């Protein structure tokens, strides 16, 4: 096992490209049905499915990289965190106005009929807005 004082090599990978890679002190994400989970250097090997969520990567230089992850997997070792996702967006790439619009539409749709698709759309919109700080600090 690597020592706990080290750092985590973080990679967010989508099928089309490596979305993000960098060194971090801590990564917080949310697993499917399991709630939020934080990884620090030296974490035990972990494999999980992640839900639509606002993932936070605390970089070694003190800044925080916010990422909206829409379903995927996370593989963790003592010195690395790899997030595999079909669709993930860095906070700086998210169009807030569009996310707001998507959220409004999803809510509108859910008011009239209950659909899994509508709920997923709403969760995605939430993840996006949360990542851009649009929903306040809470998820």
């Amino acid at each position: 096992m690597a020592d706990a004082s080290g750092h985590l090599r973080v990679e967010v990978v989508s099928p089309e490209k490596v979305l993000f890679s960098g060194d971090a002190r801590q990564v917080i994400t949310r697993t499917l049905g399991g709630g939020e989970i934080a990884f620090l250097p030296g974490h035990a090997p972990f494999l999980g499915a992640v839900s639509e969520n606002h993932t936070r990567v605390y970089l070694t230089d003190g800044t925080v990289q916010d990422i909206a992850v829409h379903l995927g997997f996370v593989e963790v070792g003592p010195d690395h965190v790899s997030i595999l996702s079909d669709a993930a967006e860095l906070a700086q790439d998210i169009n807030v106005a569009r996310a707001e619009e998507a959220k409004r539409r999803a809510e509108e749709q859910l008011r009239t009929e209950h659909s899994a698709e509508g709920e997923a759309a709403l969760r995605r919109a939430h993840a996006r807005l949360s990542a851009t700080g649009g929903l306040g600090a809470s998820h």
Partner: protein
Amino acid sequence: MAGGQERILRGRIRSVQATKKITRAMELIAASRIVKAQQRVAAAVPYSDLITEVVKDLAAAGAGKDKPFLAGRAEVKRICFVPIAADRGLCGGYNSGVLRATEGEIKADTGGAVEHVVVPVGRKAEGYFRFRGYNLGQGFAGFTDNPPYSVAKEIGEYVVDMFVKGQVDKVVLIYTRFISAGSQEVVIRPLVPLDRGVVEGGDGKNAAGADYEYEPDPDLILDTLLPRYVEARVYAALLNAAASEHAFRQRAMKSATDNAEELIKNLSRIMNRARQDSITTEIMEIVGGAEALAGDDDSTPRRVEYVMADANQTGGRV
């Protein structure tokens, strides 16, 4: 009519030149796209490597041991073939390579009681198999030169759905693997159930040799992971096929351009000869005419002489 022939040749040369411009443009476009397509192939590698690693580890940890997805079905009654060809022609032997390999595979595998269903990718594949009366599933087309991930997802979901419902017992991908700009090969790869070689080799442990913790449990993760894995495989195949398509097209268009050049050279030669001929003829005519006219110079007496001579001759005979 020498002049007429020359005009016809000039017209042909002009038309070949126009065609050459088009093929040259297509060649250059294809060449520039190869690079981009190659970059996309490379960009997709980290994801597919990682997901393969995860699948291996999960399988080694004992998840989904009895799942048909990994273990396969005891009896294979129906095989799904997914040939990936192009939407357009003008790319040399690219389409026919894939289509012939697919047809051969269908005949070899379905010689007995095994049925087939073809899920053609690319307009050329669809047309080919529809025309020949093969049993077709849904076709996918309209993106082969630049496939987005969403299409790979659709194809993946479609074949996984067929497999899960038991409509097919095996899915095979046929596509052109891109090795380098100079070499590509048609490959036949099993997609579902997963290849033994892919699943084995994992030890359920990470590099440090420790067991994984799972959340939720391994079986559930595997259930959501396997469709993603299939999609990633399809995506990689589509990207390889796209890069190969551009490479084939570039080569085909380069030789078309070369041929056009050759044709222009030959036609120009023939045309020049025709023109030379017509000029020669013209000169001959002029010379002939000039000679005739030269004979005419202050001619009245001479003509009279000829006429008189004629008259004398005829007269003499009569």
